[in-house]
């Protein structure tokens, strides 16, 4: 068996160390070793985006990244969104606009939408659909997910205006 390695990275602002075999996927380290069960496993074949996390300012599928590739990285998951008991504008948007039904895709959706709004604070509906294409939802039909992202975009831009 290949030697286990200690990998250190920042998880939602906190420094963490995790001991893994090289073949361990980031989603498994997060869920099983670091008790961050927000990112979900939908397919484990790189298609659904339920496992989306943000690594060094980029949305990635954490089922398609090895934990050993994350040395010194900054990782953000859905657990990092609520601040001081207050929901993030995206979490509020998904609640207000009924952007979820079963909720399985939601942590990935919100984590992806967060990066989208950082890159483009007021995206059009078409842009939202293009830039959210890596996240699948089997329940909502996407309509209310688009509205939820727009809700958050409006709230964030009026807060910064």
């Amino acid at each position: 068996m290949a030697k286990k390695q200690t990998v250190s990275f920042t998880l939602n602002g906190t420094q963490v160390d995790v001991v893994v075999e090289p073949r361990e996927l980031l989603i498994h380290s997060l869920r099983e070793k670091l008790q961050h069960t927000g990112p979900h496993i939908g397919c484990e074949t790189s298609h659904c985006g339920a496992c989306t996390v943000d690594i060094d300012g980029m949305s990635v599928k954490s089922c398609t990244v090895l934990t050993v590739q994350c040395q010194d990285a900054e990782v953000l998951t859905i657990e990092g969104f609520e601040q001081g008991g207050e929901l993030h504008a995206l979490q509020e948007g998904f609640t207000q606009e009924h952007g979820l039904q079963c909720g399985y895709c939601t942590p990935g959706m919100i984590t992806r939408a967060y990066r989208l709004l950082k890159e483009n604070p007021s995206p059009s509906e078409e842009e939202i659909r293009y830039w959210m294409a890596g996240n699948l939802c089997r329940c909502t039909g996407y309509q209310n997910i688009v509205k939820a992202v727009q809700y958050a975009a409006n709230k964030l831009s009026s807060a910064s205006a």
Partner: protein
Amino acid sequence: MQDFSYQRPAALTAAIEAFEQAEDGRFLAGGQTLLPVMKHRLATPSDLIDLAGISDLEGISIAGSALSIGAMTTHARVASAAEVHDAIPALAKLAGCIGDPHVRNRGTLGGSIANNDPAADYPAAVAGLNATVYTDRRRIAGDDFFTGFFETALEEGELITRVEFPVAAAACYQKFDDPASGYAVVGVFVSRGSQGVRVAVTGATPCVFRMRDLEAALNRKFTPETVSGFCVPEEECNDDLHATAAYRSHLVGVMATRAVAAITDGEM
């Protein structure tokens, strides 16, 4: 996934050395193909040599009348880089229609062409623009690089360092994508430059190829109507759950016509 050892060298020479010392080594780029393949145990390397620590392999620059793109440059970077938009907008568009944003954030040019998936997009640009592939030991002409179904001219342990794309006067890539993955059911890359017209087709057959008879006709008369006399026979086309051979054969003509029309209309 089967057990393996992992290392992340900081220099090209160290990566080559690591490969030579490994029993059954593999280079790891973005992992967007290799990790799924390893999950299925279709690849079971003893050692993964991560190229992400070698900064020389990443980046975009203009070299004379060519655009040079490092092997580890991600699809997302190619899609958004001003240098690519200015020099070869069709290439930026191609990179921007690969998979989805997450895949583009990690997937790389070098990984895509080394893998040579019959439905991948970049091979169409390499063949359609007459690009040159640079490796740790030599340069390979785009026309000689893709040799068959998931096969390339790369030797054991040969590492792609960068690809040079000549800047064509005009180019356009049209693809009919698979709605689930984004891969090309059929994609056609047409370019028109000082060395004439090139037409490269991906997705249709087991390996990307150039339609040389159509190129010759377009060199005489560059109009969308010219395409109608040419086709890729159904017997040569892939037939799978995504599309029948007959459908793919038909799509080649549709995509080629659209690409030529976009170039003549000046809307690439």
